[in-house]
């Protein structure tokens, strides 16, 4: 006997959505067991194969470091120089596809059902998007890239304003300055966010509207049908886990080296393995607390705090630097980006190969290899948004924030280089000697309160690693649990610790560079995966609209 006062704590039925009826039951392939006091609920065989493959590759990199370095050190540049046209063309397709979705009638489709309500406020949502997918890159490349493109890589053949003897060629200054910003914005604007948006939209659509498990293979249901639950799907999910874990672990290893360089620069902390292992341990420990506190109490909270600190640093640099010049840079950079977007995106017949192969194709492969992780995380927090709102918020607004960030950090750094080339620390660390980890601190040195802002910079670098690490652990745990987001807590602890352990082992034993090159190489197969996802989204939305 039920009574009629049933009080449901869930939202009202969320309106029509086009559920796919499949024979597969979520969790049917999972193994539930108890190891000592720890419960496990993992997908068979994705969990085991992912874990064993990762261990095997770590052993390979440690046992045969020279061979691994030779193979992957060759593979990555070979892929980006041979397939640069493919990466550039695919990324252009993703941008056009997303822009089309904004104006198409399918933009009205709501993720989670016609009457679903958003899970997160705009602020929490944006904070998580940035903190998972791009925060760390903005810290690392915000100064480096605009200066480098302005002075060295000569995108679209725009000549450098700095002569070989270090003097400034006044005639080249204006064009090189705006091109430096535009060429950087191109790598951080519409294209990377379109890559993330495609994966996130595919996963959110097939999970929240079609009722399939939140895992990468679900987006392939329109192509593979029921076969997606078999080995095809196992391979897709395992590849995603593999790319995500190695991507995070190798970035964590390099991140520790960068943070160590920053600490050395500011406090004279010696550079060495001990400090770096301690940093990885510290980052992993904070990430562990974050995953134990969960999505709202850990990941979202930390992302919001970090974004607030990043915003304060941005405002400080804006006010302490030449404010009017920066505003002018913002608009001229944006204008130059709009004007040069088509030539910069041109996939064939380019003569600026240093830029297009060394930077653009590398970036596209990198964003694409990260897209299963970031896309899946974005999908999980995007329920309740319409497709139009989703694309505008994942594509347009983050792009504008990146433009602002690059205009402020890059604008100030370029100004420092061009106004005082003899004394500029940025020129010394980026142009005279290539020392990327110190570029941010070199720029901050030229502003007041450098000691304080450098400490804030180091904290931001570390916490952005934490926010990638914790969200990455949740994503890997979900994939290896067959799309279950409520698997036992020890599993997410395992992945978080495993990631830190892989980073430490590779840091001590060598192999960070070769395995990161390998991860970036996975960008090639994933580019094909993303193209298939575009088609799947189109199919999915078409059925949804009926």
């Amino acid at each position, binding site marked *: 006997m039920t009574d009629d006062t049933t009080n449901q704590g*869930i939202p009202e039925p969320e309106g029509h959505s086009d559920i796919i009826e499949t024979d597969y039951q979520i969790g049917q392939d999972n193994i539930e067991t108890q190891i000592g006091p720890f419960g496990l609920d993992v997908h068979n065989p994705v969990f085991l194969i992912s874990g064993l493959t990762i261990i095997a590759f770590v052993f390979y990199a440690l046992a045969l470091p020279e061979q691994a370095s030779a193979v992957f050190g060759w593979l990555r540049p070979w892929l980006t120089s041979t397939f640069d046209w493919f990466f550039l063309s695919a990324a252009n397709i993703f941008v056009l596809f997303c822009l089309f979705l904004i104006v198409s009638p399918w933009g009205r489709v709501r993720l989670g059902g016609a009457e679903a309500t958003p899970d997160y406020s705009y602020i929490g949502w944006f904070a998580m998007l940035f903190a998972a997918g791009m925060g760390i890159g903005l810290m690392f490349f915000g100064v480096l890239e605009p200066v480098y493109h302005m002075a060295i890589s000569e995108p679209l053949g725009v000549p450098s304003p700095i002569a070989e003897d270090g003097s400034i060629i006044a005639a080249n200054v204006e064009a090189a300055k705006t091109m430096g910003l535009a060429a950087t914005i191109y790598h951080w604007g519409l294209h990377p966010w379109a890559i993330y948006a495609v994966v996130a939209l595919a996963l959110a659509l097939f999970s929240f509207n079609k009722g399939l498990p939140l895992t990468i293979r679900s987006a392939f249901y329109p192509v593979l049908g029921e076969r997606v639950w078999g080995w095809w799907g196992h391979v897709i999910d395992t590849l995603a886990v593999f790319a995500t874990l190695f991507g995070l672990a190798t970035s964590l290893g390099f991140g520790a080296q960068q943070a160590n360089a920053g600490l050395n620069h500011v406090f004279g902390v010696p550079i060495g393995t001990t400090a770096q292992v301690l940093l990885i341990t510290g980052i992993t420990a904070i990430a562990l607390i974050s995953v134990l506190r969960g999505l709202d109490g850990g990941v979202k909270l930390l992302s919001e705090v970090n974004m607030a600190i990043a915003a304060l640093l941005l405002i400080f640099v804006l006010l302490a630097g030449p404010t009017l010049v920066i505003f002018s840079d913002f608009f001229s950079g944006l204008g130059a980006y709009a004007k040069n977007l088509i030539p910069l995106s041109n996939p064939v017949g380019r003569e600026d190969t240093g830029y297009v192969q060394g930077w653009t194709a590398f970036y596209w492969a990198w964003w694409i290899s990260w897209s299963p992780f970031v896309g899946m995380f974005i999908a999980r927090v995007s329920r309740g948004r319409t497709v139009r709102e989703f694309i505008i918020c994942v594509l347009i607004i983050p792009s504008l924030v990146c433009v602002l960030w690059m205009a402020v950090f890059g604008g100030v750094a370029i100004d420092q280089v061009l106004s005082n080339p003899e004394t500029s620390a940025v020129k010394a660390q980026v142009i005279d000697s290539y020392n990327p980890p110190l570029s941010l601190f070199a720029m901050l040195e030229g502003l007041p309160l450098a000691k304080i802002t450098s400490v804030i910079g180091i904290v931001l670098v570390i916490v952005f690693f934490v926010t990638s690490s914790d969200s990455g652990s949740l994503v890997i745990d979900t994939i290896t649990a067959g799309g279950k987001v409520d698997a036992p807590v020890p599993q997410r602890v395992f992945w978080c610790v495993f990631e830190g352990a892989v980073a430490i082992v590779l840091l001590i034993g060598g192999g960070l560079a070769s395995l990161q090159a390998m991860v970036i190489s996975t960008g090639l197969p994933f580019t094909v995966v993303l193209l298939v996802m575009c088609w799947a989204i189109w199919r999915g939305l078409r059925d949804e609209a009926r």
Partner: protein
Amino acid sequence: MALSGPRENDRKGENSVFSKIMTPVDLAHLGGLQRALDCAADLAGHYGADLVYVGVTAETPGALGHNPAEYAERLEAFAAEQAKAHGIVASAHAMAAHDPTTDLDDNLFKAIDETGTDLVVMQSHIPNLTDYIWPSNGGKLAAHAKVSVMVVRG
């Protein structure tokens, strides 16, 4: 629709020790909850209290439904079965969480308020070493809830 069971209302009244009993259920692992389910139903019958089954689901598709609404239907069906089997008045209270694994305790505290519960009956494992690091849900509820909590071991 309110239906009366054989024992409903025979002892229910203002003097009842408990008028609303809540028992959290994990529909995917009902086997391990049998003692708490039987105990809660017996207590509900004994005190003439209403019994509310609380379940927390993810917003993503799971084994128990494509979405929270489908999960809620299952929980209601379960409550109806239990009501019929034990001859009590029972209802379901489904909740959706962003991260159910870590948000379970908070949701259960919320459910106590939302349902007007005055006794929680819940299953918990026999404490072990890990409970010092991660307290069990039952342990946490017993330690912090403002209403009576009966933790059923085993």
